[in-house]
């Protein structure tokens, strides 16, 4: 019979040391993924290290960047005046990302580490899940796959990373601050996540025991346009079928800079650089947007349940670009 222990970390160093030294220990923050998966029997840590009282709350405002403590809640970040004024893409993604109750619980660090909603992963009675038991197969590939990914996937795993705000943050070149027992490091969010196509288990480059302590979000330049569009069946309270977060700088009728994130499609929050390349240097026009969207989805790998997402994601990206640039069809 296995033990189970709950401990409250005294400080960051102690928390990191405790989890690093115990292969069966996990951090506990907002709990919205951790507690849920423990109940499902998918996660069975023997020690939970509650970090919610560590001094990792709050937002510091620099001239070009905001530094967000990892334990800042989604609701707190969405309400930050700088986020409201300068990062509408982040605010919209946060507000569309969960109910207020969940936003009050979920921390931004935890949000980045949320686990896939794939029901085959979350139900231990399903034998075939390469993410849960490596080598067992993927039940989703031949299963109900409407909420699954089409980019960065393969027949090994089509699990979706369902975060909304992470889509905005990869588009913004946010940087994750990490502390481990070997010290601290900072990693661009675009390099933080790993695609599942090759290895469904490793979802990011955190080593066991490493803790996200904060996120640096570069502010968009004055005059940049940004927005986030989430497409789903219900009006609210649902994960994205597809979503798009875009930020554009347009000068002299030409797109000078473009950042595109796509949600609901990737095994990780998807940065669509190929679409950005199409946009940069081109005038804001629907034809350009369509070409960019086609480029973004060029590498899609679908199963029957997800095939519609290729077209829907393109239309969603086009619409989002139209919305932020006020270009009509």
């Amino acid at each position, binding site marked *: 019979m296995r033990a189970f222990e709950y401990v409250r970390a005294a400080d960051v160093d102690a928390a990191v040391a405790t989890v690093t030294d115990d292969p069966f220990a996990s951090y506990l923050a907002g709990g919205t993924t951790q507690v849920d998966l423990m109940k499902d029997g998918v996660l069975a840590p023997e020690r939970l290290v509650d970090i919610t009282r560590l001094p990792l709350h709050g937002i510091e405002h620099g001239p070009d960047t905001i530094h967000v403590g990892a334990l800042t809640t989604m609701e707190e970040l969405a309400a930050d005046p700088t986020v409201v004024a300068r990062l509408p893409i982040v605010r919209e993604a946060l507000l569309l990302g969960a109910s207020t109750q969940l936003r009050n619980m979920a921390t931004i660090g935890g949000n980045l580490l949320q686990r896939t909603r794939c029901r085959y992963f979350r139900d231990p009675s399903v034998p075939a899940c390469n993410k849960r038991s490596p080598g067992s197969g993927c039940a989703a590939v031949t299963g109900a796959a409407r909420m699954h990914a089409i980019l960065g996937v393969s027949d090994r795993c089509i699990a979706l990373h369902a975060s909304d705000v992470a889509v905005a943050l990869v588009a913004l070149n946010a940087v994750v601050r990490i502390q481990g027992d070997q010290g601290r490091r900072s990693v661009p969010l675009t390099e933080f996540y790993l695609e599942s196509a090759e290895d469904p288990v490793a979802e990011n480059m955190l080593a066991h025991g490493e803790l996200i302590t904060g996120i640096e979000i570069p502010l968009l330049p004055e005059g940049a346009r940004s927005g986030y569009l989430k497409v789903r069946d219900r009006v*609210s309270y649902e994960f994205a079928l597809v979503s798009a977060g875009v930020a554009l700088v347009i000068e002299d009728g030409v797109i000078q800079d473009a950042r595109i994130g796509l949600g609901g499609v990737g095994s990780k929050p998807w940065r669509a650089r190929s679409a950005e390349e199409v946009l940069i240097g081109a005038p804001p026009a629907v034809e350009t947007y369509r070409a960019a969207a086609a480029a973004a989805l060029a590498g899609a790998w679908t199963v029957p349940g997800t095939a519609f997402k290729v077209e829907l994601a393109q239309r969603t990206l086009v619409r989002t670009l139209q919305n932020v640039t006020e270009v009509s069809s």
Partner: protein
Amino acid sequence: MTATQSRPLVGAALNRVDGPLKVSGQAHYPSDFDVPGQAHAALVQSTIAAGRITRIDTSAAEDAPGVLTVITHLNAPRLDRGPMTGLGASPPPPLQDDRILHHGQHIAIVVAETAEQATDAARLVTAEYQADEAVLDLDDPRAQILDNPWGLDTQRGDVAVAMASAEVVVEGTFTTPDNTNNPLGLFCTLAHWDGDRLTLHDSTQWPSMVRATMAQVFKVPEDSVRVHVPFIGGGFGNGLRAWPHVILTVLAARTLARPVKLVLTRPQMFTSVGHRPEGVQHIKVGATATGELVALEHRSLSAVAMEDDDYEPLAAGSAVAYACPNVLTRDRQARLNIPNPTSMRGPAEAQGNFALESIIDELAYAVGVDPLEIRLRNYAEINPEAELPWSSKALRECFEVGAERFGWSQRSPEPRSRRDGDWLIGYGVAGVSYPWYQAPCQARATISADGNGYVRSAAADLGTGTYTVMTQVSAESLGLPLDRVRFDLGDSDMPIAPQAGGSGLTSALGNAVQDACRQLLDSFLTLVHEDEMSPLRGCTRADVAVEDGRIHRLDAPLEGETYADILARHNLTELTADGASDPGKAADLGMALAGAFGAKFVEVRVDADLGLVRVTRIVSVIDGGRILNEKTAGSQIVGGTVGGIGQALFEDTVTDAGTGRIANATFGDYLIPVNGDVPDLDVVFVGAPDRGTPLGTKGVGEVGLVGVAAAIANAIYHATGRRIRSLPITLDTLL
């Protein structure tokens, strides 16, 4: 007798009598009860859909902390099947052999000191199976087909000849998926044996049925079983049967001689308490060039479990919806390796109406007649199957009032002809003829020494407002103000009541309550019949009225006395009378008993590129006969309409091919409408008291849902020019 009040009680839009309890967390649902010494149970469910258990290992679970017992088919006693009910056979008892008939079948119940221990230990039970290839699809040739399982198939005229002569023929195949009732309240059973006496708290819509079932399964007299359900967190049909988990909990409590409590998990709510079964319908109508129906043929096939019953005649309702001389309806079921379906709000009608009201809409476009006009042109003035006048029918008024409130005349005839930016706008309409249903019912009424009334019956209130409207009926019938009457239910020791289901309880119970109250007044008059002291001596019910608890002579209103006076003078602490209702038969009454009618008018917006569908307006006009409470009845229609939005746009229980596992058995994956999906809903009641029942009521619990899916599909067609014959209508089908 007439009971007079300064303001009429029945019909008034009164607040719910149980409202203060519900808004303060003090309404107690089955899972809110605890019994000293209770143990907690968790279920183990099969992970295959068909085959046999070859080995089941419970040793690790039995050794786990706090575990008291693990019951499997290897150590369970043989149990009898429960009795036949008005809704068909009882479910087969669980754990009777090693066969697996569906994924999620209960294969063990684990009981431990705490719920956490039981849940942990249940994960330690391992089973090995010899799996067979499961029959999971309606079109699987191996599926056994039940032809006309309810004997409701209809045929009038000669459809083949009429169809051949029709100037216009329209036909289509419509599919509706499995839907899951998903009441918010997790079903709970708390069983407590005291010798041979069993007390149950159970999430049921039918306490009297659960009592009868437990008595038969456990071989004890019915009067030694008592079922409590003062409140239930919704049901929508899930609570219409005594499901295997109820029997398992009772069995565990008997085995341990300890109270045992089981609360189902949300995923188990998808596999253990029924669902609306998937169906496929082929419907074909023939008409004149001006849209008069000459022939209608409606065939359905729906799913049912391998060894169980479900009532789901999808096509039957089409026989009486329109004045069509040549009609054929055929309903069939296919036996599959699935959890057993059960009634879900508007069973059969919700699916059948979608097909019928869609094809009528298609016909309207085919002949170029307004969709509203074509429905009026084929209006069934009498019940065309019984060839008898309806006991009430104001469907025409539903259409007319609804059209006016909705602004139907503003509709542009052509599909895809209205647009607002990215949004295409469409209007749709559907009519509903909900079938009549009513079962016998009993009630008991008491006046106590203080002159207050107490009326009760073993019914359940799912949130429909039964507590409230029966308090109103009781108060009016007894001539007491509302605050001097208490109506109680949810206890099988009370007089037997039918299920809260089939939109039949309000009439059945209302008539029984009214009868009990009248019998009680008779008892008072009998008591004083020879009473020299009474100003009412010699009076019969026809001679008196009651006001504020005082009975007085109609011919001399100053001559009278109160209930309390009479009881005091006769040294009685209370007087009680029983009442009953038994629905009349159409043949005896010379009229066709009518359920509720309704018209649904819907406006949708569809994003032309993204396929997003937003319902922006719905007008519901309902003929529910006499409405006992405008507020609670209105809420029934509002709630049904929300359920209809779910059926139309979101709800789809997905089963994995091969394994038969439900792939989306959570509230995160099985979508029901959220607040943001629902606009303000306009609800109006029209019509007159129904002539077929003393109280004049017709049930309105289900008519609000039916028709919504068709009206939305019709509006989507009008908006986009796309006819979608498969539910739910999700954005990917509109891309």
